């Protein structure tokens, strides 16, 4: 496939034109996503609405039917259910890591086994979360193990 990149002046608006046979092809969708910026999730904290990029999210957690979004140092609340987060995160670095959590694989510092037959993931902000054995295969696939 021919790829043309043209450098333009700062004054002109950046533009991406895709000439393809099938506008629904997966690679076109990927280009669309990349062009429109990263996927975001709408959440709030103390009556303040925020739109977070998925890359900012450390993990999503559902506790007592309430959904929380954890970032480096803050916790937000969101409306989405876990399956909706899962759908949103498809094809990204976020994966289901337990019955109530979706974790960003890029934020994992290291993992260690625990006696309970599960794994403990230590995140780059020092937080520790549980990764169920059932979902470890997904993590391995994401990382390319």
């Amino acid at each position, binding site marked *: 496939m021919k790829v043309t990149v043209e450098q333009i002046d700062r004054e002109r608006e950046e533009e991406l034109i895709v000439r393809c046979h099938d506008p629904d092809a997966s690679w076109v969708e990927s280009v669309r996503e990349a062009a429109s910026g990263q996927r975001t999730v709408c959440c709030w904290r103390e009556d303040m609405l925020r739109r977070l990029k998925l890359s900012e999210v450390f993990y999503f957690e559902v506790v007592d039917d309430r959904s929380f979004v954890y970032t480096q140092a803050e916790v937000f609340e969101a409306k989405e259910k876990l399956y909706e987060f899962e759908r949103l995160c498809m094809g990204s670095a976020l994966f289901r890591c337990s019955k109530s959590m979706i974790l960003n694989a890029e934020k994992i510092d290291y993992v260690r086994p625990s006696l309970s037959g599960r794994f403990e993931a230590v995140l780059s902000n020092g937080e520790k979360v549980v990764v169920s054995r059932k979902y470890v295969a997904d993590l*391995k696939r994401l990382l390319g193990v």
Partner: protein
Amino acid sequence: MTVYGIIMLCTFFMCLLFNPTSELPVVTFFGRIMVFTLIALLSLGVYYSKEELTVKAWWMRTVLHLLLLEAVLLPLAHCWGFWHSGTDILVYAGFILLAKALWHLADYSLNAKTAAQINERIRKNRLEKRA
């Protein structure tokens, strides 16, 4: 398979200790070991939970699982002539405990290997990003 292997291993040492010259009917013997394995696997249901288990809950269920194994396997083993006297029951109960500990140890070892693979990949990915 792991459970079956552990039960076979424990049975071997039990026989070696208490009845090294005994001759067993092969089909009956292996059938009984299979029943033991099936019971051990079914009893893992005590770990089932809709919510993610906390560490404390996991330990409580582990103790419960051990008690359940002892409560079911000891009378069954007695019926099938695996133990006879008071001393035997203690040793047999000890072997059940040992088998459970071995199971968790084997599980932990496998997980440690997986964790090492994942950590190695994370390290490589990080280096690639920096480069």
